[in-house]
């Protein structure tokens, strides 16, 4: 029974185990400053994963997140000059809008979100290539610092990204635990038909979930663009799989209804630690990817709570 009660805490435990594994090998790793900056660097990925969580929470998936972020880096860089801080609004609106499109096609036209979001991602890529004229576009460094400098600075030893991440996490957590939207999404994830039979506007909430996912992907893109003070149609490549992995390792299985944004936070940290461990253990270049795969399997095997999965598909 105790074991049962432990299950929800597996992700934490996994994270601790991994961290201590690295820490034992090289105590340097455990220096607070180091851990903080490690966490700070993973923030854009985390924000994207945060968005994906909503899509996965209702049993869907959002494969457009990466292309979305790509496009947003371009949008942000191109319009920063003309719009100033307003560009942030633009970015988030665009993201949410395209997310809404995914949601609409998924719910109304009944196309699996796997396909819908993949397709919308393609549209984003085209848009990004068109808008950027297929070139890397740069922000004016001074203006960037003026408008968004606060995003990437440090307060003491704490990277400001962490405050942003914490803020978003808090909001998402509140939405998930305390709002009609969050409750509805949980109901949809756990029992869509029952939710429908209770008069919940299922389609509407699903679309909302994808919109949130899109919006957060946009935030991730914006932050990344600021960090790099520039954008390109391919600059956020390599985000998607780690982000999905982060959500899954955190313990939000694709079956929906289980897990949540807090799990994703932990999942993202797990990914960060695994990556860092490559470095600290000095894994040879040719072996890193393989090791990553193996560790990943172990981490997932440890972290997911199977008690709520009826059949493992």
């Amino acid at each position, binding site marked *: *029974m105790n074991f049962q009660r432990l299950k929800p805490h597996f992700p934490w435990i996994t994270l601790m185990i991994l961290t201590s594994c690295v820490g034992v090998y090289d105590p340097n790793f455990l220096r607070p400053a180091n851990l903080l900056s490690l966490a700070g660097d993973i923030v854009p990925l985390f924000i994207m994963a945060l968005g994906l969580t909503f899509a996965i929470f209702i049993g869907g998936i959002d494969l457009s997140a990466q292309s979305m972020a790509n496009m947003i880096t371009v949008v942000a860089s191109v319009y920063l000059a003309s719009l100033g801080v307003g560009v942030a609004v633009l970015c988030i609106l665009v993201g949410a809008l395209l997310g809404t499109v995914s949601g609409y096609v998924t719910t109304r036209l009944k196309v699996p979100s796997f396909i819908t979001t993949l397709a919308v991602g393609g549209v984003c890529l085209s848009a990004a290539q068109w808008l950027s004229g297929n070139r890397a576009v740069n922000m004016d460094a001074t203006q960037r610092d003026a408008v968004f400098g606060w995003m990437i600075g440090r307060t003491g030893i704490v990277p400001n990204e962490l405050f942003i991440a914490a803020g978003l996490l808090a909001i998402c957590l509140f939405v998930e635990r*305390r*709002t*009609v*939207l969050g*409750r*509805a999404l*949980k*109901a949809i994830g*756990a*029992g869509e*038909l*029952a*939710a*429908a*039979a*209770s*008069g*919940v*506007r299922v389609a509407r909430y699903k679309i909302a979930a994808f919109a949130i996912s899109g919006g957060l992907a946009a935030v991730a893109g914006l932050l990344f663009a600021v960090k790099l003070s520039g954008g390109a149609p391919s600059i956020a490549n390599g985000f998607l799989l780690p982000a999905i992995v982060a959500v899954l390792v955190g313990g939000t299985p694709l079956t929906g*209804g*289980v897990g949540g944004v807090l799990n994703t936070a932990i999942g993202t940290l797990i990914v960060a630690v695994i990556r860092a461990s490559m470095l600290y253990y000095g894994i040879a270049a040719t072996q890193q990817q393989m090791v990553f795969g193996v560790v990943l399997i172990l981490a997932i095997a440890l972290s997911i709570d199977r008690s*709520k999965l009826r059949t493992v598909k």
Partner: protein
Amino acid sequence: MYELKSVDKKFPGVHALKSVDFHVNRGEIVGLVGENGAGKSTLMKVIYGAYQPDAGTIMIGGKAVRFAGPRQAMEQGIGMVFQEQSLIANLTIMENIFLGYEAQFQRWGVINWIAMAAAARKQLAKVKLDIDPATITSRLSFAQRQLVELAKVLALEERIDGDLVILLDEPTSVLSKDEVTLLFKLVRELTSRASFIFVSHRMDEVLDLSDRIYVMKDGAVVDVVTREAARIGTIQQKMVGRSVDKQYYREQRQKPFDPGRVLVEFDKVSLPGRVRDISLRLHAGEVLCLVGTEGAGRESILRAMFGMLTPVAGTVTIKGKSGVGLNQPRAVARGVGYVPRERKVEGIVAGMTVYENMTLSQMGRYSSGGVLRVGQERALARDWIARLSIKAHSEFADCGNLSGGNQQKVVLAKWRSGGSDIMLLDHPTRGLDIGAKEDVYEMIRDMSDDGVGVVLVADTLEEAIGLSHTIIAVKDGQIRKQFDSTPGHKPSLVELLQYMI
């Protein structure tokens, strides 16, 4: 020839089976009754090999056996006809019949479909079902599927040398009256081939079919009666430990409804499918029962009232407002509550707590600006848990882990607390034990007192007669007759049946 000797089964916190003795003779039909949680399903799982007993022995033909799983039980001649349809919809009939036993039709790894079809026909003949074995199962009616299930189990007899024991778990739950009689006729004939263990909540059916009846309570067999000795009253007494009096359906609480207030009005409504020209009125405080055979159109009418089906013709009026463009959310907003037959699928959300389930239909009422007032939700839940004496450790209990009866209470509480005054009950007592059933009846009466209009699709005709003010007999999608059913002049079974069949 099949025997359980002092079989014991424990689960964490529960002593599910207390040294149960049980035996079935060749060609015998044994009934198994008991309230939910009495241990019936555990016993069945032990019998067909899904559970292994902690203590005691299983004997077949005098020698002890032990099953690692259903598969092994089957090889020993134990077959199971499941309550939930256990046929795979996207496979053909023959594939379903021989699922897991395709090997016999394989030559060099190749399945010989002709041979399988032939063999399948042989099985289908046993259950007098003349249909192409290559038909996709999803195209069959419930009754047909039930027969295919039976054929599937009967297919065991070619495979094994010993005798067959077939468990029938609530086989009649999805069948209409006439289909039930057909099934029973068939089962009796089949006793030449196999023995049956018949599990049902419908006492009358159990008495009708079984030669001997095992009565279970709290994980133990409290009585074994022969058909001759069997009396519903005494058995129910043994099951519930109290007597079920004449007032089972709370007739004494049935008050006349208010003909002045029409809640729902159907005028010549036709629905997609074969339901047409339905005209009816539901009044405040009225219990309106729809009776008819499976697929006669009762569910369609219910779903139309809840906005899940859009009429192709005619007008629906709900509380004086036109029902055009009605959908589930709008229906709920107008005070319609729907208690679905598929409780686990459409009724409750497993994995969510009791209070989350109760407010699912009325989150607007418990939130301001989209933010939920969880405190109030929990208060509400606690209140209703107490009112309906729902057995849950707290409002935080996962609905998925509650018993059927308590789940049903949660569903009802959801709508009642939301102030729904048009309640659509689709088999509300399906699979409930007597205790829980009585609670449901009480609630229906309470609702009537509060001026709620109830549309009921009952589990049994007795139930329909007992509970209703008005009964509408539906056949082939059309209303055949409307009965007044106020106490005193309630229609008889026979009267109803002649308009249903």
